[in-house]
């Protein structure tokens, strides 16, 4: 997956009504691409056994 560009990140932020300065945009673009690169390989892991927990474990349950 190609890295997002600053223009694309700025468009995403505008869609969410999030103001970003040009300096913010540059750094947020690096951070967001880092997220995507770090999380993408998770799709290759075997996820058949554990179900994604949408809520934390009941503290009283074993």
């Amino acid at each position: 997956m190609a890295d997002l560009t600053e223009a694309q990140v700025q468009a995403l932020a505008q869609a969410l009504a999030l103001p970003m300065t040009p300096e913010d945009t540059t750094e947020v673009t690096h951070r967001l691409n880092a997220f995507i690169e770090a999380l993408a390989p998770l799709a290759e892991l075997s996820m058949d056994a554990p179900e994604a927990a949408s809520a934390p474990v009941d503290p009283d349950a074993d």
Partner: protein
Amino acid sequence: MPPVSDDTVFLSAARQAVLIRDKQLSPVELVRAYLERIDRFDGRLRAYITVCREAALAEAQRAETAVMRGETLGPLHGVTYAVKDQFATRGIRTTAGSRLMADHVPDHDATVITRLTGAGGILLGKLNLTEFALGGTIEFPFGQPRNPWNTEHDTGGSSAGSGAAVAAALCGVSLGEDTGGSVRSPASWCGVVGHRPTWGLVSRHGCVPLAWSLDQPGPIGRSVEDCALLLGLIAGHDPHDALTAHRPVPDYVRALAEGVRGLRVGVIRELTSGPETDPEVRDAVTAAAGALGRLGATVDEVSLPILPRAGAAFMALCDSEGAARHLPWLRTRAAEYDRGTRRRLLSAALVPAVFLHRAQQARALVREQLRAALVQHDVLVAPTGHRPAPAIAAYNAAITSKAEAISRFFTRRSFTTPAALAGLPAMAVPCGFSSTALPLSLQIIGRRFEDATVLRVGHAYEQTTEWHRRRPPL
């Protein structure tokens, strides 16, 4: 009563409590001694945001009167404590380290405050933290916290002031909050002990939230015993926090003496010997594991291949929750945030949902691998961090590439976030010093609600070393 010396202020809180009870230590003189040290050192260290000078002296006077009258005393009677400025304190501003809450004064106490004060503790003040407990603050609104071991170096966060204040003896003991390492990291880099309790053991009522499925208040002290003492006071079900467990709270202090003979200890290979781990850190943790073996534990190596992915999964989940909570302010008051905080939240707000789902699944894998390892072992050990405290200047530099973001944000968080993602207890204990005289730290991870085992292993190791008795060169 004898005058308060430098030796006295560096004593453990547990020892101070005994001396106070035996009329060998004046609570008033003790508070004065800590206030004098705050005046002398905190202009540089910036551990405190608010010092409760008059209230602490008044409370100390009441405490001293009670001692002299022979009244029944609580376990923390006359002992000073300070708390991360994330916990609500009635009538005392609670800023969460942010300009956006600079004038916020709660009308209630957090449950942990009520419990510590109820035990006789004297609140000295509110401690500095990274903005909204998130991490990555570049310009701290209330001053840059500095590491007492080298003031050009970072304290660790987000409970920055909690670590620094304990290390520099600016209070008897402190309370932080750990979402993904925010008690353990400052404990590690400041050379003190910090415990993240099992998720659900301690009430979060009155704590400014970051991520509800991860947040957990935890003690920071100059000894494992102090953490055990505080944990026993703050743990237990709270009707104000429905997600606190109803289990009885053990006597954590009494359990310290049980030793480690017969316990099975697993050294996590990927964190201890991984490519990112500083060789001095690796050697110190390996030596600590060896010490546990000589004390009678069985020690072997365990592999948990998902753990290097944990940092990214954690940040996706934690930060997206934070971004959702801060969305209104990000839209209307963005400029008032520190730019480091703002950029972290903005990044998380834009992460696609499919990646958040993968992060959630990775969280389940982390939990599964840790729990499987803890069937074969009573505790797991690893470094608390991959390196000693970095220089502040390097830590706060702008992010100029994707690779730099990965290294700075995800790598180090893969050390402390696994226990948080799995809801397990984990503690940071000093295990040496680097060649540059900065503290090194051993992390001990246990099974859910077996905080007593974690504490007992940490105590047994601590008693074989002198690391926790060293004092920073202030």
